[in-house]
């Protein structure tokens, strides 16, 4: 902090603007000038657009079977061909985008909310509550997450919704850890002390001062995690503990088509490529975001 006291008004100005504060527009501009982040965010944007508009653009009903047109290769008529039941793969991919993307975002959002609440209160209040929260996160981190997710999915009956719940349960402790560490650092700042001295309530301090300043690493981690969660959900569906056939979920589609890899490559490969491109996009965007938000990280 500055050693010579600034005039009150000037200090207030600094406080209001913050040293490195940038507008949203500036943030987007910076994001797009970083090549990795730009490619990543454009791809993520593309997939989100498909998730929203895909079902409208789908040429056919994704569940409609055409047994006389099974396993037809990609052609001008059916761009991505058909699967073993004659269903149009393009239409199924377009519908599946919505499931995978909303699933990934929902799980991460739930995990971020739970983890942030637990972590920020643990770091801010400390004491017994802190110990308790940290030990509980220890337990959840030690759990074999995929096995726990499988068990939860199995006892609640395998479905996409239950897989979402199961994965969220295993994912929140990372955020609790992360935000607690940030909170411990941020709460030592003078502006927190100042807010305290001004008589601001604890909740107000957490909401106005701690969270906004502690959130950057959570944002980076969350972006990277959307990809990892999408992979996990697809994996659960692949072994039968997530979305169930005939749902046009990408993991299910790879599983359905696995025996055709040699002969009709497009049946399992196209959904796998869809997963790869979406997850890669999330990882690129997350990497780029980290470069932007964390000046210490070395590219």
């Amino acid at each position, binding site marked *: 902090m500055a050693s010579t006291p600034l005039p009150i008004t000037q200090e207030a100005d600094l406080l209001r603007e913050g040293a490195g504060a940038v507008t949203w527009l500036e943030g987007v501009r910076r994001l797009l000038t970083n090549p990795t982040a730009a490619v990543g965010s454009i791809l993520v944007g593309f997939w989100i657009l498909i998730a929203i508009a895909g079902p409208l653009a789908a040429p056919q009903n994704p569940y409609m079977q055409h047994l006389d047109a099974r396993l037809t290769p990609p052609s001008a008529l059916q761009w991505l061909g058909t699967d073993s039941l004659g269903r149009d793969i393009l239409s199924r991919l377009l519908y599946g985008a919505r499931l995978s993307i909303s699933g990934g975002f929902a799980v991460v959002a739930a995990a971020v909310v739970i983890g942030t609440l637990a972590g920020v209160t643990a770091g801010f209040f400390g004491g017994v509550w802190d110990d308790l929260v940290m030990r509980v996160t220890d337990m959840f981190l030690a759990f074999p997450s995929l096995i726990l997710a499988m068990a939860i999915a199995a*006892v609640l009956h395998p479905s996409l919704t239950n897989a979402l719940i199961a994965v969220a349960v295993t994912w929140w402790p990372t955020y609790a850890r992360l935000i607690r560490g940030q909170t411990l650092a941020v709460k030592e700042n003078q502006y927190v002390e100042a807010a305290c001295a001004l008589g601001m309530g604890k909740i107000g301090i957490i909401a106005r001062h701690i969270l906004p300043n502690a959130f950057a690493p959570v944002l980076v981690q969350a972006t990277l995690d959307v990809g990892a969660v999408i992979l996990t959900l697809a994996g659960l569906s692949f072994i039968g503990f997530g979305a169930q056939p005939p749902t046009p979920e990408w993991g299910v589609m790879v599983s359905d088509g696995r025996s055709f890899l040699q002969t009709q490559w497009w049946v*399992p490969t196209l959904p796998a490529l869809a997963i790869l491109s979406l997850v890669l996009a999330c*990882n690129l965007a997350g990497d780029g975001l980290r470069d932007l938000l964390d000046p210490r990280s070395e590219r």
Partner: protein
Amino acid sequence: MFLQFVARRLMLMLLVLFGITLITFVVSHVVPADPVAAYVGSQAPQGVVEKVRHEYGLDQPLPEQYLVYLGGLLRGDLGTSIHDDRPVATDIATYFPATFELAMAAMVIAIVLGLPIGVIVATRKDKLVDHMARALSLTGVSLPVFFLALLLLAVFYVKLGVLPGPGELSPYTQPPPRVTGMMLVDTLLAGDLPAFQDAFSHLVLPAFVLGFATTGIIVRMTRSSMIEALRQDFVRTARAKGVGRYRVVVVHALRNAMIPTVTVIGLAFGSLLSGAVLTETIFSWPGLGRYATESVVTLDIPAIMGVTIVAAFTYSVVNLVVDVAYALLDPRITY
């Protein structure tokens, strides 16, 4: 001081393990699904259902069931599998070595590939190799592992025929007498070289698939900590003194860059053990992951609990070892 640190970590670990048994127990007993009904079938008369329920102690109050379970746990008794009627501990002892061998092999592949690549790209930052390695490691963490497995099987087993298909051994190979349960070790102990070669070639694909994502992680970690280390003053001093480039990179920088890498390796090993589920399913690998899948499908609750506890225990032990190794590697760390 050091012993105190280890003792405190051990205490914490016991606490965590206790919590895990509690969570697993609650999750598996306060569930709508009825394992007894799943076991005896829906057509079984009520008397049979009650008898089975009593046999497995499932008619006792929950806290009592938990205490009985905990008591057994302390004696190394994980209960009896509802599915195959064998002690869960025996089942796990049967399946664990295969998973351990697979995870070890995956780790070896990940380290042997990841560490040198990470060092090389760190010395050629922003050159072509660096970008290629980054693309590869990003793909590694983005590719669905189940598709990679299918793809490699299709290419190396079906198309080229250079590697064998799923399983631990070819159907024509006589399995060696079981000593450790790890195929490579057992075939060597039996002095059966052809069987060893067979086991080795069966291990290559699943280990590569399981280690692929970890390789990417190790490359990234090594790269960033090497770049950091290469910028330090002692590296510049060594260079100024005329120390050879190879010696500077390997002896001076790498040794200091190893600490974060060791952490990542340790953590990755813990997750490899539980992450083997998908790989084992696809490669018909007779390990813990496949046992877990089967237990989940049959709602075999003692087995699910056993696998979860063993996996959590392994993870915690590995974590402890990493922490201790960390403290030993870096003299600056105080306990």
